[in-house]
């Protein structure tokens, strides 16, 4: 378990680096990507400021024709260009990382916790892991079982020689006076070794809250290491299609944002975009990918033109990335106050909740909570999922987190 396990499973052939793409580390070894405050970005910012004052636009630098309208990509294109990671490979990496613990029959570590921020890939990895062989999947309890502290849930615990996997510890508690007994009982049984050896996945927000419920320390918790800009570049690079290779260039100056694979046709390959993306998303791969998606644009394909030149061809295969300053990120409404804060906090602590559950937790009427949710959805901060629960959006997560932080609410550690 020392060091970090690796997976390079995004697509077959890619840059082989020393640093693995998905790193699993102890929570105490989690390191945020460094904030972007280098000389170059200050330089760029100053130049932009002076230009803004002088009023001259820098069309000259832009590789696009003036007035060329860039279009956002449709979902099918996006799915091809920004594929989601292959979770089974990530799960394999996690399994390799945990191998020493699985083999060593160490009785004083009956369970391991895998803590991860929302959209950080922790849930998908564990779901894939629970499907693979020596692992047994534990179903989350119904909310009625949580409120009633129904011990029958433990009766249905998977028996066998394997290691059980509970993917979502946050779904075993509800933040209400009668909703914390079950998780306490679960932790008591799991830590005493009564349930056998297992892996417990937990959202970082629920983890921060449960540490107060349970007074626990992050002794046995592992986490996914934050993605810095170099690893983000590998994560976001699309797989090569049959004959087309995509170039990702920044729309205002043509610089390659992801370095063009296997070619050296540009010396400038970094614009600071990925550094800022990594810092803004706190190295969270799901959040970074969601913002990346909104930043991509294409030239409109002007019908079927047979005699298309090679340069144009390349231009069409080029995906234009909005400059970081122009990437639209949601913002908290200016009048957001206590009600918005407690609603968002409750959603994060439980990794999504239906309105009926929210209404039992917050000291407000259900109509007011619904109204707040719609208001926040309007601002792009929450969305209504298929399972009838409301969740904070990936793209809105960074701003929600910093809003809760400045308002002194309990925030996660990742």
């Amino acid at each position, binding site marked *: 378990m020392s060091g970090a396990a690796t997976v390079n499973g995004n697509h077959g052939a890619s840059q082989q680096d020393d640093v693995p793409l998905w790193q699993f580390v102890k929570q105490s070894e989690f390191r945020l990507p460094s904030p972007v405050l280098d000389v170059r970005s200050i330089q760029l910012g100053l130049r932009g400021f002076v230009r803004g004052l002088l009023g001259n636009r820098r069309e000259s630098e832009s590789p696009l024709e003036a007035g060329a309208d860039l279009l956002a990509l449709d979902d099918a294109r996006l799915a091809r260009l920004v594929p989601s990671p292959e979770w089974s490979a990530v799960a394999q990496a996690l399994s390799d990382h945990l191998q020493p613990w699985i083999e060593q029959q160490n009785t004083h570590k009956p369970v391991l916790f895998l803590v991860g921020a929302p959209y950080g890939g922790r849930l998908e990895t564990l779901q894939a892991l629970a499907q693979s062989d020596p692992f047994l999947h534990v179903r989350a309890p119904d909310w009625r079982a949580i409120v009633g502290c129904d011990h029958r849930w433990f009766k249905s615990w998977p028996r066998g020689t394997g290691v059980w996997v509970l993917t979502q510890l946050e779904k075993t508690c509800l933040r209400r006076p009668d909703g914390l007994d079950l998780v306490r009982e679960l932790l008591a049984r799991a830590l005493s070794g009564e349930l056998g050896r297992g892996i417990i996945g937990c959202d970082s927000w629920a983890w921060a809250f449960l540490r107060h419920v349970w007074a626990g320390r992050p002794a046995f918790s592992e986490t996914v290491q934050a993605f810095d800009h170099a690893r983000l570049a590998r994560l976001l690079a699309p797989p090569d299609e049959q004959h087309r290779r995509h170039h990702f260039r920044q729309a205002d100056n043509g610089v390659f944002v992801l370095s063009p694979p296997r070619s050296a046709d540009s010396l400038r390959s970094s614009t600071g975009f990925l550094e800022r993306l990594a810092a803004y998303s706190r190295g969270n791969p799901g959040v970074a990918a969601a913002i990346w998606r909104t930043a991509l644009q294409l030239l409109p394909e002007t019908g079927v033109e047979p005699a298309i030149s090679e340069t144009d061809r390349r231009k069409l295969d080029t995906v234009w990335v909005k400059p970081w300053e122009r990437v639209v990120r949601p913002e908290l409404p200016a009048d957001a106050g206590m009600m918005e804060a407690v609603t968002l906090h409750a959603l994060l602590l439980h990794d999504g909740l239906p309105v009926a559950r929210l209404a039992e937790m*917050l000291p407000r009427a259900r109509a007011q909570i619904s109204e707040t949710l719609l208001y926040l959805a309007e601002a792009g901060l929450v969305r209504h999922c298929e399972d009838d629960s409301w969740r904070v959006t990936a793209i809105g997560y960074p701003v929600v987190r910093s809003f809760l932080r400045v308002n002194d609410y309990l925030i996660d550690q990742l």
Partner: protein
Amino acid sequence: MDSAERVVSIFRDVSGIAVVQIVAIVVIAWVALLVDQRVLPLLAHRLPARFRLHVLAAIPVVRLLVMIVAAVLVLQRLVDPTLENMVALLGVIGIGLGFALKDYAGSLIAGTVSLYENPYRPGDWISIEGTYGEVKSINLRTVSILTPDDTLVTIPHNTLWNSPVFNSNAGTTNLQCVASFFLKPEHDGQAVRQRLRDVALSSPLVKLSQPVTVVAVETRWGTHYRIRCYPVDPAQQFAFITDLSERGRAALMALGVQFALAAAVAER
């Protein structure tokens, strides 16, 4: 020239004093004061409410101005305005003022000391001599407190010298709130304590970075439980206590414990 002669020499010769002028000044001032005291209030009551308060507030200011102008005009006619004379006169007035301003100076100094000692800062929730509220501003002579009843209380800094100052958050945003529950002694204490802890932990307004504690003490009329915890924002302290009491009562009723009620005797 000894001092008595000098005091006399300040005044002009009797021949130089314009008695008629002085009498006229006094009479005009008296009439102006009369107008100020009688006519302005009448006028004020005819004006819409918005202006009334401003007009009424102007009355003492106008009175003070009239008096000062009259006094200066009279003095000008009594005293030769050389620099020496003025200085001596101001000295005499200064000593008199000094005695009169003793309390004012004391408050000013207390205000300065309060800036150094920081027993209260704007934004603190303090209690002085039984008045609880948020410090709105610290003025030269006084501190202004806004009570939860939305009453602005102006307390001279003077009180600092002899009264304790209770500061609930002391410059931080950590303000402890206490929710109390009174139960009959026949109950499972551990279960109640755990449940009350959960009540505090599950309040959406609780600040979890601060500790949550539940203490109990046996009293003559039952067991007195206290939840001690901190709201996210000190301004929400009353909403927070309300929320704790409400959830706590519901949770205790669900546990099936019985509340103890003291037979109260009204004091007033």
